[in-house]
């Protein structure tokens, strides 16, 4: 990963990725050092090994990996880099765990502007510094023009769980309360608003954020009365509730009126013919908790900046059909289903 040699600096303003940046030679070393090591700067990377060693306390560990292929790469409120950091931190946090370290792999398309790559790396660096979860190892590959959509990032992470906590998706029980940490659909709408084919004006910015701080506070107060937590990313709230219902063999009844959602998100979804319940989030979590702990958990969530709008949106119920049903704000009822097929604007 490191090559010590005298070399010129990268032209971060006008330069572009070429195939030599992925060939493993001098150019690769220059790219890694001038962009990634600089942006992620920490002791492990400075050591310049192909891997990083670290000590962990005796505890149950959590490991996760995810790949990020968002289009467009830059959107209001974030970019693919901050998304890759937050997304992986959140996957660890949803186990109730404390994230410790991240890795980052890049697949970059020939011709990609170095300035954009630098912006992405800097966003990752500051996201991981703010979250206190360093990126300690990585990899870079360059593919020919046309073989990737700009840049793909793959991040893995590890964390540790405190003793006695075991959150599993099959743990929801009839009667359990369902709480969401804030308004839904912000990320999906922010990204869609910048898609070339859609391109509409909105003030909505992505909600992408690292949730492990909020989770730590929740675990502190509610501990193992938390049955499970999930972050409603792709597929939105609807997909998460259906997944939990099927894994736990319960149904859910939720109240449309209780679900926090910004009027701008409702308006954008209306325009595109989408259901906000299916739209992606990147900084929200859903928690299923024993009913007697719901109020206490809600209070601690609301006291945290990332859970200020937390709301109790419904309950699990015995239902071997595993339906997620919703009382509509108009007084009717309907199913809240997974997304079938691709989510597309309607014809007329």
């Amino acid at each position, binding site marked *: 990963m490191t090559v010590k040699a005298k070399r010129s600096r990268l032209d971060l303003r006008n330069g572009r990725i070429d195939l030599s940046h992925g060939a493993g030679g001098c150019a690769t070393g220059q790219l890694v050092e001038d962009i990634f090591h600089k942006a992620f700067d920490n002791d492990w990377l400075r050591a310049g090994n192909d891997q990083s060693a670290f000590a962990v306390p005796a505890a149950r560990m959590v490991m996760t990996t995810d790949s990020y292929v968002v289009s467009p790469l830059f959107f209001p409120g974030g970019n693919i880099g901050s998304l890759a950091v937050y997304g992986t931190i959140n996957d660890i946090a949803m186990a109730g765990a404390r994230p410790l370290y991240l890795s980052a792999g890049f697949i970059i398309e020939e011709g990609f502007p170095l300035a954009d790559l630098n912006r992405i790396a800097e966003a990752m660096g500051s996201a991981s510094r703010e979250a206190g979860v360093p990126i300690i190892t990585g990899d870079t590959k360059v593919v020919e023009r046309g073989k990737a959509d700009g840049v793909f990032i793959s991040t893995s992470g590890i964390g540790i769980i405190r003793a006695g906590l075991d959150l599993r998706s099959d743990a929801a029980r009839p009667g359990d309360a369902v709480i969401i940490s804030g308004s839904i659909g912000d990320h999906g709408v922010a990204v869609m608003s910048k898609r070339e084919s*859609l391109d509409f004006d909105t003030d909505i910015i992505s909600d992408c954020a690292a949730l492990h701080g909020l989770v730590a506070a929740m675990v502190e107060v509610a501990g193992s009365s938390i049955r499970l937590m999930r972050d409603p990313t792709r597929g939105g709230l609807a997909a998460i509730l259906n997944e939990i219902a099927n894994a736990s063999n319960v149904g859910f009844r939720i109240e449309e009126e209780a679900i926090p959602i910004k009027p701008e998100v409702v*308006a954008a979804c209306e325009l595109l013919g989408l*259901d906000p319940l299916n739209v992606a989030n990147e900084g929200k979590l859903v928690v299923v908790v024993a009913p007697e702990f719901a109020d206490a958990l809600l209070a601690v969530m609301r006291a945290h900046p990332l859970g200020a709008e937390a709301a109790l949106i419904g309950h699990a119920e015995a239902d071997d059909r595993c339906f997620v049903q919703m009382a509509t704000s108009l007084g009717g009822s309907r199913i809240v289903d997974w997304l*079938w097929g691709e989510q*597309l604007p309607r*014809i007329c």
Partner: protein
Amino acid sequence: MKYIDEYRDAKLVKDIARQIEAAVDPARSYHFMEFCGGHTYAISRYGLEDLLPSNVQMIHGPGCPICVLPIGRIDAAIELAIRPEITLCTYGDLMRVPCSNGLSLLKARSAGADIRMVYSTLDSLSIAEAEPNRQVVFFAIGFETTTPPTALALRFAIAKDLANFSIFSNHVLTPAAIKTILENSDVHPLGPIKIDGLLGPAHVSTVIGTQPFEVLAEEFNKPIVVAGFEPLDVIYSILMLVRQVNDGVHKVENQYIRAVTTLGNEKAKCEIANVFELRESFEWRGLGAIPHSALGLRSKYAKYDAEKRFEMVTPAAQDNPACECGAILRGIKKPSDCKLFGKVCTPDSPMGSCMVSSEGACAAHWIYGRFRRQGKADESWRTVA
């Protein structure tokens, strides 16, 4: 969201539901067909069925453009799209409709056909402009609502002298379909269907106005209320229908006055008339061939007419014999009457087009309402009364 929230006001909606409850005659039943998929969608999406008394039944009609397109037309489009020089542009939902030989546009695309999903007719024009070496065909479908944009696209193509752009027209006409449904409601071989009134289409009527429905209301003694797609529009229009039935009248009423006039949009109608002419007959999925029910490009625009330019033929294609879409589109059966519903046929693996678009009766019932037994939710959901 101004002008939308008003039409989703829970208090008003519940209030009108109470008025319906008070107005209905308990000794009789009311069967209303919602012509448009947009109404079907709104009723399912907002759970409006739960707000209606049990003797008011809504029947899904044929008003989803995807559902009524015979699969032979899509087969023909696939035939065209696999030619190496052709780029076929289409709206998203159409991609998933199951066609002959286990194909769909989506599958044809993954097998290498150049099929692109567009959001508007203008997107396909831009593709034609940007790629002059390809023959770009716009797969046009829809009722009167989507016809003016297709007409405009043709006008732009002519103005820009785009020699590589053409239109595969599948535009169909609402009044002709309503007439066929009402004509056959008592005598159809699949069984009689009781229709006491119709929710007329909203977007379609913004173009053609309410006038074309007057002769239908008169001829068949059925009240027709042109209704918007917001929940308050729909429920209020049902109240208007109940009142007409109670009074024994059969008028065309316009609930959607904020967008619809008696004569419609003259400019849009002119645009359509300039570009299109009536086809003698057109096959509708589930309804059969209906005379004068669809539009083709006028012969003077033959070079922009994909059917002529590429000598397309529409193969006679058979729907899956177990699929009940035909009976559902006529209002004779409910989605749950189909043996395939929810078993082999789901939105993930649709067997018929009614399971494809969210405005299709089967998809709407599956996605939003499949917990209902006998068309009603558990009593615990009833919050009106």
